């Protein structure tokens, strides 16, 4: 019994990590249709920011909380720079964007290696995040780890913040306007290039926040981004482009599926099965879980 519940929660926490790393993409890829393979390196930048901050602020708890906004800004600025210098030239060439940003990601990885060294580094988790909460005590206890709860909370907060920003703020309205009709937005007096940059700042900033969260569960290393980027893209693709609710549901669904399969088979087999399941799903619904139907030609 407690195993089932434990696995479900593990699945949810895998889902929360997936959601956090994919959330920024739901803006840059989902809304703006830019395939940014360097997104994983923005996550890495957020993680290294946490590491650097912890070196200067010795209290692990404070440094973690400070890291959240700082990492958001660091990755956000990197993203805005990337948009300004490269991606802007490539809006009509999505496939080239993919490969160009892959090149950027290679360079960022090597840069991280040159600055921080090839070995992985670590942050200390604050004491209030190293324990666990016992839900069911006794002989067969069911516990939930603090750091996982923190990540889940962070994911929920980030989704809420993004969703509210898109719905309620003038900036959000502008982003949606540009996404829905670039020309119309332009002639209505919206500076589309500024909106693009801001949206990219936000999306990349969310990657930075995800990076902070990842320091709580795994190592910080130059290649940490490569390992997760494809998973993140799959979440968006399966969820449906431009559909925040789709991404949320798919992230948790994939998380639970992964953890259930992991339990009944092995981690490797589970990973392969999940990927195969995704390919099969896209056969059934090529546009993802939620779709936006338009009569556009291509």
């Amino acid at each position, binding site marked *: 019994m407690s195993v089932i519940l434990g696995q479900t929660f593990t699945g949810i926490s895998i889902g929360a990590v997936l959601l956090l790393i994919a959330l920024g993409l739901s803006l840059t890829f989902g809304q703006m249709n830019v395939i940014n393979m360097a997104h994983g390196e923005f996550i890495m930048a957020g993680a290294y920011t946490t590491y650097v901050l912890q070196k200067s602020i010795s209290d692990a708890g404070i440094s973690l909380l400070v890291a959240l906004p700082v990492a958001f800004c660091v990755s956000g600025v990197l993203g805005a720079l990337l948009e300004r210098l490269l991606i802007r030239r490539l809006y009509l060439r999505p496939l080239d964007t993919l490969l160009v940003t892959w090149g950027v990601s290679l360079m960022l990885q090597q840069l991280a290696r040159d600055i921080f060294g090839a070995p992985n580094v670590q942050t200390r988790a604050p004491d209030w995040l190293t324990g666990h909460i016992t839900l069911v005590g006794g002989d067969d206890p069911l516990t939930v780890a603090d750091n996982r709860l923190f990540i889940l909370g962070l994911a929920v907060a980030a989704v809420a913040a993004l969703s509210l920003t898109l719905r309620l703020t003038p900036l959000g309205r502008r982003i949606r306007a540009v996404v829905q*009709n670039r020309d119309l937005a332009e*002639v209505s007096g919206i500076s589309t290039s500024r909106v693009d940059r801001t949206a990219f700042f936000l999306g990349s900033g969310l990657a930075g926040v995800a990076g902070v969260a990842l320091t709580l569960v795994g190592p910080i290393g130059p290649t940490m981004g490569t390992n997760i980027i494809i998973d993140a893209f799959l979440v968006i693709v399966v969820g449906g482009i431009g559909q925040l609710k789709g991404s949320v549901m798919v992230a948790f669904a994939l998380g639970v599926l992964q953890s259930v399969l992991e339990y009944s088979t092995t981690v490797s087999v589970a990973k392969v099965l999940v990927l195969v399941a995704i390919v099969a799903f896209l056969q059934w619904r090529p546009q993802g879980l939620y779709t*936006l*139907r*338009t*009569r*556009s030609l291509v």
Partner: protein
Amino acid sequence: MSGGLEIRGLRVVFDGFTAVDGVDLDVRPGDLRFLIGPNGAGKTTLVDAVTGLVRAEGSVRFGGEELLGRSVHRIARSGIGRTFQTATVFEELTVLQNLDIAAGAGRSMWTMLRRRRDVPVPVARALETIGLTDVADSPAGTLAHGQKQWLEIGMLLVQDVRLLLLDEPVAGMSHDERQATGELLERISEERTVVVIEHDMDFLRSFARSVSVLHAGRVLSEGTVTEVQADPRVQEVYLGHAPEVPSRGADDGPDDGDGGAAVGAGAASAGDTAADAAVQEA
């Protein structure tokens, strides 16, 4: 050339928004039918439904064959061709290659895997008809806007379609070009069925054999140009949009020089998409 286009109770619904709402339409062979109507009336969606691009309910028969439910390329192979609002040709290929591809949907595997050695007769004839023989070896991307639209029509000719559905074929053309296009359409329609979506009233007056007016997804009026113009319901619908109708004809092309008009066009065509989007928001 037997059997015309026969549409019965056609409905197209986009996520709850009804774009085409029970259209009945008959176009006889040899007709040159114009479809007009204000923006959002469902003209293009109607053509999309006939050519299989959007899913629709009802019945569309051509030459007695039911078209609904078939895939786009199968509908095309049963002799139905269309053009798009913005001229869509293969820009990197030459004019000749464009026409050759259009002529070749039925080619065998073996023919496909070999080179084209000469110019197929229908292609040569079409080049002549659309007056592009001189530029046959230029990439289609280098053509002027009007020439591209002619090339599109030429592609329909070599495709040997029996029903041509043309979406604003003279948009962005000069007066002389319009005249030439109109004459071309008249010639073509002698052997085939032609349906034209157009906003340019002068063009319509000069060349339409019959007109259908669409409004809010339904057929509002049908008849000759004079009949339709005399219809009080048509006048009512167009009064509110009166200034827009004449201006629309000239400004929908991608290479429009007139900045002010472009704004109107952008906003107008954007209106359709925005409407769709607005619905999905709900």
